[in-house]
């Protein structure tokens, strides 16, 4: 039995070793997505492939390592065999990685002939082949139109990088050189981790090391189980939607989750989710599992830190084959990290938060959904220096607002529930790419309204600069047709994403006259386009691309928000005065102070308005879990059968609630549920009219 001192020393040592591996990978790769957005990760696994400690960056890469190691153990033991010095590489979505442009390398760690652990490292590659440059094969019908994945291959054999296999991987790619460096980066990370683990074995002995790995998991698992025991058992549901243009038609795919907690176990059941799409946006089971774990780490990071195995041991997942969250070959998945997986993350977060809400002790840990579905723009062409360039503008999606929660407001432009993500400076992008930013700012009214407000999203506008045109603009955006950063406990969802192209504007003339337009509507344009969310186009001289990302979901009824916080929001430009009055019921006087009398009257009127507009819902139309509940504002409790809950549709008020304007005829409504005693909002729900079966 390992003594507590040695264990404490080794626990910290193992975590440092993982950090060392990550440092080597970052230093070697140096690509912007790695250096600036930390799109990579490392992992230390047990001999059976359980995740002991993963790095602090994007968790899905590390989870891919776990899945890959388990696959190799299951399938390759005899042929081609697992030997010291070997490393296995894959970018196969049906085995491990969420999509083809994510690649992982796993390395077995041997002491003599005994397999004692695995090291793994994963990274995002720029391009791995396929019909379209970059990651997203817009218009693909199946995986046959996307980059062809590689199953785990023994790329490193006995410590030697096999030239033939390396060449196979590089030949497929348009970014051959960077891919070659990135391969070396993940090999370097594994080499570092393997060597350092071997050093600990020679110092502490192999049994001590193996026991320490197990105990790190056991310790986190015990902590997690303790938390779960303290939470009441129950069932919670959430559905959310992915908007995608399939065969040029808007389709809304549902991701439906039922979470059942009994004792120390969590069952995530996705069975009711929509059918899979032909290509691009699906999640394989592995990807769904990866993003579920990512959501779990976000919620339970305070107790399990960076140990996925602890989570694995309490979680079970069910998902029907052929659905958007468990697609079957040959469904395409090339946008796997930024499509259905994000909805998985959202509904898992929402269900877990509902679960936490049911616990007195953990209620204040409940959070709404940070960041809805993602808006991403790729640009390619010739840059201002005459060289080819490829850029991904992902600030509006990375700098989305963080969710509000039971403890307070969301972080403005705070992004997702992982700590080390960042966006480049405007100056960095203007130096690299032929664009000029007219503005990049926090988007007022974009955070989901609530007693605690969701964080603001980011909006920006760029125009080509020092080039005649940007020949290729590839738009692949979700979240433009329905809100997806859901609110919690009566909080509202955040604004939807928004994309406009203004053609042939007079921006040059304005500049010449010494004017930077305050608002983009101050610019005259020959034509204003709302491009479809999955499209190819170009940007010419004087064209302005304007994109606005969503915020985080709100928490609680906005009419319960402290009036001075609403005033602070106005002073910090987070909301407008109109929103303060219409959504929060707060009136500001001519001196810029809260008019408390008018505020009380306005809030009263808004509550009365709810009562008038609301209609009762027959209990039979409610899911069982909704029939019993409570109001956090007045403490009113209701149980099935006693009085029925009113429901109101607020489709026409969508804009006023900061939800934003849809790209085409609004395909959704936001439904509110009120407490029949005090008329506070107890729940909001996004309802979509036509959902894929």
């Amino acid at each position: 039995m390992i003594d507590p001192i040695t264990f404490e020393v080794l626990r910290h040592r193992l975590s440092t070793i993982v950090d060392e591996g990550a440092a080597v990978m970052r230093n070697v790769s140096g690509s912007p997505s790695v250096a600036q957005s930390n799109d990579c990760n490392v992992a230390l696994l047990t001999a059976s492939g359980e995740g002991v400690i993963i790095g602090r960056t994007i968790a899905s890469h590390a989870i891919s390592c776990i899945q890959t190691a388990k696959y190799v153990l299951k399938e390759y033991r005899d042929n081609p065999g697992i030997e010291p010095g070997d490393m296995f590489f894959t970018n196969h979505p049906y085995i491990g990685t969420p999509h083809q442009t994510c690649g992982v390398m796993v390395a077995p760690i041997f002491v003599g002939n005994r397999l004692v652990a695995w090291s793994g490292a994963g990274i995002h590659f720029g391009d791995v082949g396929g019909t379209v440059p970059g990651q997203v094969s817009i218009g693909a019908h199946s995986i046959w139109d996307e980059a062809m994945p590689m199953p785990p291959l023994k790329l490193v054999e006995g410590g030697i990088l096999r030239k033939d296999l390396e060449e196979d991987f590089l030949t497929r790619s348009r970014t051959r050189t960077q891919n070659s460096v990135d391969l070396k980066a993940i090999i370097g990370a594994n080499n570092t981790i393997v060597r350092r683990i071997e050093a600990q074995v020679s110092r502490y002995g192999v049994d001590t090391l193996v026991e320490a790995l197990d105990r790190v998991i056991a310790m986190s698992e015990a902590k997690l189980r303790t938390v779960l025991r303290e939470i009441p058992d129950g069932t919670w549901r959430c559905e959310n939607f992915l908007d995608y243009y399939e065969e040029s038609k808007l389709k809304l795919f549902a991701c439906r989750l039922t979470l059942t907690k009994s004792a120390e176990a969590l069952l995530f059941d996705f069975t009711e989710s929509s059918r899979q799409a032909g290509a691009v946006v699906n999640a394989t089971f592995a990807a769904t599992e990866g993003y579920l774990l990512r959501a779990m780490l976000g919620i339970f990071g305070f107790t399990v830190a960076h140990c996925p195995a602890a989570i694995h041991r309490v979680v079970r997942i069910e998902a029907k084959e052929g659905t958007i969250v468990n697609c079957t070959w040959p469904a395409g998945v090339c946008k796997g990290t930024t499509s259905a997986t994000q909805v998985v993350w959202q509904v898992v977060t929402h269900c877990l938060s509902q679960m936490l809400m049911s616990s007195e002790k953990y209620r204040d840990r409940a959070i709404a959904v940070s960041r809805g579905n993602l808006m991403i723009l790729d640009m390619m062409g010739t840059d201002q220096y005459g060289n080819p360039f490829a850029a991904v503008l992902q600030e509006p999606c990375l700098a989305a607002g963080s969710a509000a929660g039971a403890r307070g407001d969301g972080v403005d432009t705070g992004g997702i529930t992982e700590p080390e993500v960042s966006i480049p400076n405007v100056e960095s992008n203007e130096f690299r790419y032929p664009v000029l930013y007219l503005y990049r700012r926090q988007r007022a009214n974009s955070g989901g309204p609530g007693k605690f407000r969701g964080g603001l999203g980011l909006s920006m506008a760029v125009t080509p600069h020092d080039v005649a045109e940007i020949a290729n603009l590839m738009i692949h955006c979700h979240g433009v047709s329905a809100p997806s950063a859901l609110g919690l406990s009566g909080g509202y969802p955040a604004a939807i994403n928004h994309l406009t192209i203004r053609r042939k504007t007079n921006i040059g003339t304005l500049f010449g006259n010494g004017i930077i337009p305050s608002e983009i509507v101050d610019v005259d344009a020959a034509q204003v386009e709302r491009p479809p969310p999955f499209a190819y186009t170009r940007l010419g001289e004087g064209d302005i691309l304007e994109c606005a990302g969503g915020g985080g979901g709100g928490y609680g009824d906005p009419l319960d928000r402290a009036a001075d916080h609403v005033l602070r929001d106005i002073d910090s430009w987070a909301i407008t005065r109109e929103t303060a009055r219409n959504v929060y019921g707060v009136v500001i006087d001519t001196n810029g102070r809260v008019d408390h009398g008018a505020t009380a009257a306005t809030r009263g009127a808004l509550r009365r308005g709810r009562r008038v507009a609301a209609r009762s819902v027959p209990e039979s139309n409610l899911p069982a879990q909704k029939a019993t509940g409570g109001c956090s504002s007045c403490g009113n409790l209701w149980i099935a059968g006693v009085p029925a809950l009113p429901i109101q549709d607020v489709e026409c008020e969508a804009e006023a609630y900061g939800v934003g304007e849809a790209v085409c005829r609004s395909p959704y409504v936001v439904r509110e549920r009120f407490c029949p005693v005090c008329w506070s909002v107890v729940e909001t729900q996004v309802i979509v009219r036509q959902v894929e079966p």
Partner: protein
Amino acid sequence: MTYVVGIDVGGTFTDCVLIDEAGNVLFDKSFTVPGSPGHGMVNALENVTTGRGLPVNDVLGKARAVALGTTSLTNKLITRGGAKVGLITTKGHEDAILIGRIISKSDGLSEAERSDVLCWSKPDPIVSRGLIRGINERIDYKGAVIVALDEGEVETIVRELVESGSEAIAVSLLWSFVNRSHERRIQEIIQRIFPSLYIALSSNVAPVLGEYERTNATILSAHLGALARREIDMTSRLLATRGLSRPLLVMQSNGGCMWGEDVETAPLNLVASGPAGGIIGAAKLGEQMGYRNVIGTDMGGTSFDVGVIVEGAPIFSEIAIHGRVRMALPHVEVVSIGAGGGSIARVDPATGLLEVGPQTAGAVPGPVAYDEGGLEPTVTDADVVLGRIDPARFFNGRKLLDRAKAETAIKTRIADPLGWDVFRAAKGIIDIVDSRMGDLIRKLTIESGVDPRDFVLFAYGGAGPTHVGAFAKEVGIKKAVVPPFASVFSAVGIASSDIVRIYSNSSPLRSPFDPGRITALFMSLQDQAEDDLMRKGVMLGATRLSRSLEMRFRHQAYHLKVPVPDGAIDRHQVDCIVDRFIEAYEQNFGRGTAVTEAGVEIITFHVVATTRPGTLSLREASLGGADSGAAQSGMRRVYFEGGFVNAPIYEHAKLAPGNRVAGPAIVEGANTTLPLHPGQELMVDGFQNLVIHFSDVTP
């Protein structure tokens, strides 16, 4: 006799050293006087001079240089205790500091806080949104004016900002580091209306690419500039009444000193300058001892600080985070963890595991052995219980420690819950903290691309020597050095620092490079440096100008600093510079990792002006015999690996150059104790350093 004086004002102690012309070092400490650091300095000076027949007025009057390091601005920054600042920036980009590149939500948080989503928040902005004004103007990446500056608007905005209470103005426009004209013009307009208003321009404060970090540095300079000036003026005046006749020098985090009268132009350079002093001390002493690769480690009461010196030059970082704010601020990189003598040990009731730190007992109440109300056992308590620290000699006997209380605390709170005896528990506390420090050293060196086993380690700070025998071994160090003045080492570094001014300009260029443009950009920085030196009355011959370029491969974010020779740059030299960059890159990341076909970018030009206030080298005595018997003052029981042994005690001051000591042994120094573990051996070198050799090196 004349002296160079170095003073390090910390939170608890003010350390003072005098270095005479022969290279002898005199030193002592005093308590810091809150609110009046000058008085603490005079007290420390008096402690050094008393009994040596050196009147303070005489020492200060004839000093060749008096250099000061202070932490007070760091605290002011953390508490946002400076001026109320208004910000003028490019219209459309007012929110840059609020967006904070997202990363501001977790910058400056502890490890535990980073794992907990509920701890994330953006720091309180130093400028409220209402005091940020965008102005109609725009410059592009080439420095071309896209939108002319609206001068009338400047006047309106400044008046509004002042009426709204702004006491200082920060001006940070996009691309101002390439074309300063708009910022300069705004400054002229403000000076005309409000001649005494403090103005910070981003093109002066941090002329580098990256508006977020540059703007933060500018805002903080405006926030702290006037305050820094007041503080240094006050101290200078006080020291002048005690005889100081030369301009006071102030230590900077960039590893050099500046003239006190200049602090308002670069107040941020004072932040965290003390730890940089330690690293500079290690670099200078290392240089004299012939070591070019050095790890400097400082263990005090609350933290363990590490810096790395590669080929004689401290590793630099261009970005600093203080008070949760990320800023462009070139500084000697010093990484810190909460591990010190005051770190508290606890048994986690949930897991039954022993944990040490990051909570600290601080100076008050301090460890249990201080007997000032501390109840939770600390690292120092464990050192006392194991006999590694003599309770009667702590802090030169000025602080008597209560060993029995320390033992009881460890027994009841650690040993009993674990079912162990008290000594095993105490040893456990020390093993954990030592391994934690070893892990930090490894992490920092690996991140810097170097192998710690090739380095000599310097151990200083009050607790450094007590633990070096274990943590240096953890990382496979072969040789560790404990200087005789280990407890005031930062002050020695401050005294031996050169006067350093860094002139930088980001002018992003892409290969193929125009040699003429590179030459011109360097010449303009050099002219600026020479003008400044002339104004200071510094002989140009006494100053060395060295040039370097920050370079990177296109498509990569990682950059490297490449030295550039003097003189005009021709095409051949451009090729040499690029070759040197590629070589340095591959040295760090391995052969074949260079992405040469991507092309190379120059991001920033640097000219560093180094002026040495006077030649300074420490006295080196010749080595005598190995026999250390004359320095032995007794024996005591000390717990090492495996149990208590009788260890001879040596007095550091009485050891002579050439003496050797074999472990187990204890060497008592001024405010420090070095336990020499069984199997370890040390030799006293010509500088009176204890040089420990580790024979059984394990990684």
